[in-house]
């Protein structure tokens, strides 16, 4: 080797200049940076993929028709482009999902963060992880062939259709429980122990401490978790396509079949809409809308997380 064992040199040793060039280090750093930039390229790619067909879409369909009417049927003839039915369906299914996931997920988070002993945590954490790992197509199947028939049996007065927003929403809710639970738990874990001890020292019970001290202190993190869960629910495709259906009628009744934005994209995208046709461009227009909505929510959520990290870390 070029670098012999250096004696503990008496007098003046050789210069402190670089003994051999290290171009490798620079090269490696460049490769690492490029890898990190792939994520930027992905975002750019998504935007590029969406923008051009969306502009073309709006050159043929007016903004007024898209946002101003309530009849949706780009795949029919004559086509109709009033986007509200699929927006309303998306919001409605998201709302049902949130009603399921927020109480359950938050309770699970409080339990895991404040009550569970390490041993109990070791049992329940994997349950949430496995739940998070169940493919959505499986949830969709379960909603369609099990939950809907059971609900029909138990609550015949609801008048559920074979595909309906209710079952789809319930299962989307179950799907996002792990998101609410684990992110809220992270936020609660970041609450300094001093706050809890302060509360106990004043004679507060565990319940009071959890509800009045820990949850408020972790509030921005919990809000971030819920927003992220909303974004996930709004973009979920397979469950709503399987159990919610593709019919786009302007309705608020959760017993009805209704197509969300994602379901529409799935339906139109899996068919053979020919490139350049209006139905094909509609996919991208709806995709842009969905992307903007979720992008906005994700951004707000990420900023909230950054904020609570700054406060407590």
């Amino acid at each position, binding site marked *: *080797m070029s670098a012999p064992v250096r004696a*503990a*040199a008496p007098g003046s040793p050789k210069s*402190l*200049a670089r003994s051999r060039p290290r171009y490798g280090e620079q090269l490696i750093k460049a490769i690492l940076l490029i890898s990190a930039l792939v994520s930027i390229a992905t975002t750019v790619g998504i935007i590029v993929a969406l923008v051009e067909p969306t502009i073309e879409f709006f050159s043929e369909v007016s903004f007024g028709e898209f946002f101003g009417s309530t009849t949706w049927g780009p795949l029919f003839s004559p086509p109709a482009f009033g986007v509200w039915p699929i927006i309303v369906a998306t919001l409605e299914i998201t709302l049902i999902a949130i009603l399921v996931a927020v109480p359950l997920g938050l309770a699970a988070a409080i339990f895991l963060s404040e009550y569970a002993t390490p041993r109990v945590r070791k049992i329940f954490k994997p349950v949430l992880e496995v739940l998070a790992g169940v493919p959505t197509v499986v949830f969709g199947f379960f909603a369609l062939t099990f939950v809907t028939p059971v609900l029909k049996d138990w609550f015949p007065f609801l008048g559920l259709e074979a595909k309906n927003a209710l079952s789809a929403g319930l299962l989307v809710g179950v799907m996002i429980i792990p998101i609410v639970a684990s992110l809220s738990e992270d936020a609660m874990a970041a609450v300094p122990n001093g706050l809890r001890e302060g509360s106990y020292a004043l004679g507060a019970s565990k319940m009071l401490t959890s509800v009045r001290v820990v949850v408020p202190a972790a509030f921005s993190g919990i809000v971030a978790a819920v927003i992220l869960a909303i974004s996930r629910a709004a973009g979920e495709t397979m469950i709503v396509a399987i159990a919610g259906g593709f019919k786009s009628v302007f309705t608020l009744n959760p017993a009805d079949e209704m197509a969300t934005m994602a379901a529409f994209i799935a339906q139109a995208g899996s068919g053979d809409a020919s490139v350049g046709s209006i139905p094909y461009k509609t996919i991208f227009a709806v995709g842009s809308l969905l992307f903007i909505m979720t992008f906005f929510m994700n951004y707000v959520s990420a900023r909230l997380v950054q904020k609570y990290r700054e406060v407590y870390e």
Partner: protein
Amino acid sequence: MTSQPNVTIRGPEVPNTPGSLDPVFTVEDLSVFYGDYEAVRNVDMLIGRREITAMIGPSGCGKSTVLRCFNRMNDLIPGAHIKGKILYHDENLYGDHVDPIEVRRRIGMVFQKPNPFPKAIYDNVAYGPRVNGIKRNMDDLVEEALTKAALWDEVKDKLKQNALSLSGGQQQRLCIARAIAVKPEVILMDEPCSALDPIATTKIEDLMQELRQEYTILIVTHNMQQAARVSDRTAFFTADVDSAGVRHGRLVEFDQTTRIFTKPSDKRTEDYITGRFG
């Protein structure tokens, strides 16, 4: 002198006059910044070859900050930079041509908390030579370093064991062996005993006396007795608050350890070593 500190003091074998000191480092008007914050200002010191120089002072006085300038570990903190000069054998340590990695190969460091790598004892010692491109006679090199660190007899039968299985004191001596294996000229020690019990501390202090035959040692400690026991020269740092209310570390007094502990020339030094503050 009114109150003598109750400490043992090394014999006065160090030459008295600064002229007879053979400097490894010459520190000239050194100030250290973190971003805009000036953590330490205007330090002048000479570090003599094969001497033990101790840096003492209350916490927050910048002694560790100064220590980390000698092997350019401060470079790793974003925004950290220095003004002034540190000469290493007449070569500017912060010169444009200087490679911090080359510096660290010449100037070893031992940290406050023992930080062996989670690998075999052997691999811990061999790590430095390996990253420096040395491949031959590794077994001899490892044995030599462990022997010099007074650890060989304790570990020679379990070199393949994970270093984390050693006791705290053994881990710290392993870290010293690890530093020695690169054959540095200088060893920087940042409060090497603060995480150790008294027996382990004594072993490290004895070891330092051995190492002094061959290496130049700089040690930061906030244990005054330790500085008095082991060092040839002592630098006393303190922090003062400027008119804007900002704390800056500064060097108060730098002299032979015997002098610092018997007749310090500065009132603040005297107050500190007699335990009136800090």
